[in-house]
């Protein structure tokens, strides 16, 4: 067993019992990055010197026994949307390609206080807009299971880094599916938290009423360990309510006997790959074997969620990206301009990729005079109906079980120039985001194992709970994980 292939919990245990040092763990991960990252492009910045230095300092503290956090001395990379003081943070956009933040995001600060060894920054779709990382100015992140396919997005770099053992855990952001979908496509665990559970201060905003921050991990327990550190109210983010943070590892291993699991029929309909739905249905059967009660439910407004999202999100995005004008943010256009307006035009035309331009234009359009009521306000009203759907469902059942992505990882280039086809990749994750409820993606099987010569591609199951039910979701996910072996399978790299 190589050091880099340990889980976070195993690595923490090894550090505690002095089987190896943080420096040894870090060297192992840095060597792994050198070995497999050139073929995957998950890391776009590797902070080798900083990592070695942090590991050395962590070892000094570990030797003195001054360490309380299980994250202490553990190497990890973070999505390039989190401000890291003194380390380039680009959002994978040319417009801020050389931006170095003067402060850490709250979550980065929390991780550093818990002993983070930062190994670098991870690839993503530009400003978190996409489902494949093909919209990154640094190029696509390949899927560790099949390099001709995408790793998902927008947090594709984080998912691929964890799946390929280049990071013991990672952080991503999930606005419409950007943690769950890449976790599903790469075969790791991804948790989208309740809106406001984790601070977004120092995280570049995409759509402010939707954005969340959450962990990627190799196991459910590892995700719970990370959530323990990053969750909670933050005075720098007024959208984090003062809801108590439980110990998310406490209920792991408990039985799911008697748990009521709802299966929403709308999530298994047309457009869902049969291999995906049968893998998820088999996983639900597994829960029945463990004593859970399974029940079909209906969330009739599901089909409208995509339309709600692609009105409300671009509206908020276009407002949030207005500050990238070459004066407040961004270093301006390459050539000379004659006046201020030209300077703005040149900066933004050169700096933003096509997907960002499309979304800014949609956002500008739906917010413009005469269209606000027809589009933006209408979308906000239908959002209310989608929230009601979930509230009604959770009166009957404890959690919902669905697929994450309608299909396994798709080919690089397949959807890049067809925006609507790309948007449909998030059709099963967006409704959850509409309601601001938490959901976890866990590995539940593989597609392609029947075809000869085809590479096996991971399939993910999505467990959805009411707001602030992360502890229940983690417990439910852990029960399935313990009963199955999917999470132990690794891509051949």
């Amino acid at each position, binding site marked *: 067993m190589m050091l880099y292939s340990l889980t976070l919990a195993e690595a923490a245990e090894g550090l505690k019992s002095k089987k190896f040092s943080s420096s040894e763990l870090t060297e192992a991960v840095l060597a792994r990055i050198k070995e497999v990252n050139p073929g995957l492009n998950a890391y776009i910045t590797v902070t080798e010197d900083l990592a070695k230095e942090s590991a050395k300092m962590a070892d000094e503290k570990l030797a003195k026994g001054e360490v309380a956090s299980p994250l202490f001395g553990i190497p990890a990379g973070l999505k390039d949307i989190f401000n890291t003081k003194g380390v380039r943070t680009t959002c994978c956009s040319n417009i801020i390609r050389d931006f170095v933040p003067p402060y850490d995001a709250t979550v980065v600060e929390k991780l550093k206080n818990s002993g983070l060894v930062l190994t670098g920054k991870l690839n993503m779709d530009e400003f978190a807009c996409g489902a494949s990382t093909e919209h990154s100015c640094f190029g696509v992140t390949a899927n560790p299971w099949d390099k001709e396919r995408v790793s998902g997005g927008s947090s594709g770099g984080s998912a691929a880094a964890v799946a390929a053992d280049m990071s013991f855990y990672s952080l991503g952001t999930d606005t419409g599916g950007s943690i769950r979908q890449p976790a599903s496509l790469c075969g790791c665990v991804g948790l989208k938290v309740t809106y406001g559970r984790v601070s977004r201060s120092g995280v570049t905003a995409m759509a402010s009423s939707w954005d969340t921050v959450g962990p990627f991990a190799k196991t459910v327990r590892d995700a719970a360990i990370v959530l323990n550190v990053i969750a909670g109210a933050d005075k720098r983010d007024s959208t984090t309510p003062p809801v108590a943070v439980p110990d998310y590892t406490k209920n792991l291993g408990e039985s799911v006997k008697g748990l009521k699991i709802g299966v929403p029929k709308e999530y298994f309909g047309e457009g869902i790959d049969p291999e995906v739905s049968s893998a998820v249905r088999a996983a639900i059967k597994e829960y029945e074997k463990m004593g859970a009660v399974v029940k079909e439910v209906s969330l009739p407004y599901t089909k409208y969620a995509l339309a709600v999202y692609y009105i409300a999100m671009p509206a908020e995005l276009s407002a949030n990206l207005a500050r990238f004008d070459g004066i407040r943010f961004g270093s301006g256009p390459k050539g000379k301009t*004659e006046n201020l307006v030209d300077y703005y035009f040149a900066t933004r035309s050169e700096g933003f990729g096509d997907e960002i331009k499309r979304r800014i234009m949609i956002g500008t359009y739906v917010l413009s005079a005469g269209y606000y009521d027809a589009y933006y306000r209408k979308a906000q009203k239908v959002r209310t109906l989608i929230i009601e759907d979930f509230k009604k469902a959770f009166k009957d059942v404890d959690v919902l079980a669905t697929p994450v992505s309608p299909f396994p990882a798709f080919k690089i280039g397949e959807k890049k120039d067809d925006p609507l086809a790309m948007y449909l990749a998030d059709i099963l994750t967006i409704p959850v985001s509409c309601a601001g409820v938490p959901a976890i993606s866990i590995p539940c099987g593989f597609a392609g194992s029947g075809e000869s010569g085809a590479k096996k591609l991971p399939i993910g199951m999505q467990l959805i709970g009411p707001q602030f039910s992360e502890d229940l979701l983690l417990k439910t996910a852990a029960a399935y994980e313990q009963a199955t072996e999917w999470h132990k399978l690794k891509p051949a790299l």
Partner: protein
Amino acid sequence: MLNTDQVAHIAKLARLGLKGDEGEKFSRQLSDILGHMEMLNEVDTDKVEPTSQVTGLINVTREDKEERFCQKEELLACTSLPIEKEQIRVKPVITQ
């Protein structure tokens, strides 16, 4: 649904310059996307309140107290632009 003139107008409002055949390409793609959104019209929302905040927080306030967030040196250390007299020299915006 959105012709090239409308796309050009929206792009101008959003401070985006369009090059070559971009107007035509975006007109096609944005029309596709907005076409999909039309399905919302079939939903009766007459008595439905809009949602802009999902956890029910309203008017979150804090004490109006000044806090020094970053030191001048920390800010200067982050820029790739030249520093003169403890100030960042920005590019000239107007070059007439």
